[in-house]
């Protein structure tokens, strides 16, 4: 991937800002998501809550299923590949996916190496729990970052923890003296140039979304107020009582995330939220996959 292509890929993420990216498993769900105001959809065979329930190895979705979703909507379509599984990523690139999520939600294919994302022309989004992880993924070529959260749980606590950690570490890097940045780069295990960028700009060099456990408009507003530039909603929508209404409400919450009066109104009568699982009840912590 040349520098221009990487810039274009980062810029696509900029166009998604202030928007909601929704997990969908069928063309019908994709159409519901688009009509509800999703700025992109994530095509996958099973939503994280079902992946969690089913257990077993979870892999890239069937390309024909992804193609069906690409044909159904006009908004960008993303799809997940396993961490380190560059052959799955090559297949997704071949079907002209708009964004690849190298995702801890699927079973990792490599427990040491992430994909060298610089070799691809399509953009990648990767999860990160902290600043070091985010910058390592960016160094590998990620054009967008999201918190890892804890997918499929409806529990927002991890996404909150990750974004707060990221904010705190960015604030620390900003506060350092220039001559302290070299040591910081060593501690974060990332190149000096990336640390220097964060030091000067006070933000990541790419767009940062919230993901994992977001189930209500209030969850989305919380993440936006904490500094997320948009949100991914997975199981939260199609595992709830009224997916269409909930999806629309979350879209509006992301646009007017500081207006509590409007949030009260759009949070009303949404039907049942996904039941969810508390963090302590989970046997498998997906966020711990890939560091």
């Amino acid at each position, binding site marked *: 991937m040349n520098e221009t292509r990487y810039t*274009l890929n980062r810029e696509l993420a*900029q166009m998604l800002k202030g928007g909601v990216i929704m997990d969908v498993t069928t063309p019908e769900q994709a159409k519901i998501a688009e009509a509800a105001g999703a700025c992109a959809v994530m095509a996958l065979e099973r939503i994280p809550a079902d992946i969690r329930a089913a257990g077993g190895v979870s892999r890239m979705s069937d390309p024909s299923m992804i193609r069906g979703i690409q044909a159904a909507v006009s908004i960008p379509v993303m799809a997940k590949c396993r961490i380190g599984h560059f052959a799955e990523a090559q297949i997704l690139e071949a079907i002209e996916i708009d964004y690849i999520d190298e995702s801890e939600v699927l079973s990792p294919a490599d427990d040491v190496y992430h994909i060298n994302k610089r070799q691809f022309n399509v953009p990648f989004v990767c999860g990160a729990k902290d600043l070091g992880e985010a910058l390592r993924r960016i160094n590998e070529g990620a054009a967008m970052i999201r918190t890892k959260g804890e997918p499929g749980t409806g529990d927002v606590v991890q996404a909150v923890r990750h974004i707060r950690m990221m904010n705190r570490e960015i604030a620390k890097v900003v506060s350092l003296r220039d001559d302290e940045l070299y040591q910081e780069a060593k501690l974060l295990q990332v190149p000096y140039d990336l640390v220097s960028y964060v030091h000067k700009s006070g933000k990541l060099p790419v767009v940062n979304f919230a993901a994992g456990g977001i189930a209500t408009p209030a969850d989305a507003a919380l993440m936006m107020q904490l500094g997320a530039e948009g949100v991914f909603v997975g199981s939260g929508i199609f595992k709830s009582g009224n997916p269409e209404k909930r999806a629309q409400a979350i879209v509006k919450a992301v646009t007017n995330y500081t207006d509590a009066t409007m949030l009260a109104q759009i949070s009303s009568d949404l039907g049942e939220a996904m039941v969810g699982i508390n963090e302590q009840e989970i046997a498998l912590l997906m966020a711990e996959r890939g560091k």
Partner: protein
Amino acid sequence: MTIAVLAIQGAFAEHEAVLTRLGVDFIELRQRRDLEQHYDGLILPGGESTVQGKLLRELNLFDKLKDQIVKGLPTLATCAGLILLAKQLSNDTLTHFGTLPVTVKRNAYGRQLGSFYTEEDFGDLGRLPMTFIRAPYIEAASPKVRVLAKVNGNIVGVKYINQIGISFHPELNDDTSIHQMFLEMVYNQ
């Protein structure tokens, strides 16, 4: 002079950064009560036009903004913004403001792999950087519309009375001349 930036979804912060660099005040339009403020010009940013079109209606911004554009509020629309202004969309039945007499093709260059950067002449401004992200282009324009730029034979920039419609993203590059041209139009209003 105050510019209103539609801030319901997309790359509005990038336009705001250009306005800040040029020393121009701006406000954000996110909901109905924001329209009560005074503004002299309007920027419709890039993003997803389906999302923006829907939120414009649901947040009750649509009718008043359309009325203001029709009455001559100077408007700069980029990418998704151009789609919002277009009178006709060749590959979509749902149009939005419909105040700019052109036919626009959405996602005209295909998916993200079709996104590209180039430099071409733009009106009287000379050669400008142009970033196209899953961009639309203008398939046909009414004779009353002034064509400002073409890339590979396709129209990518037009002006019609007080509306400037562009299929690329001037807010993503360092060159501010398109914004300056827009601000001049606002100033002369």
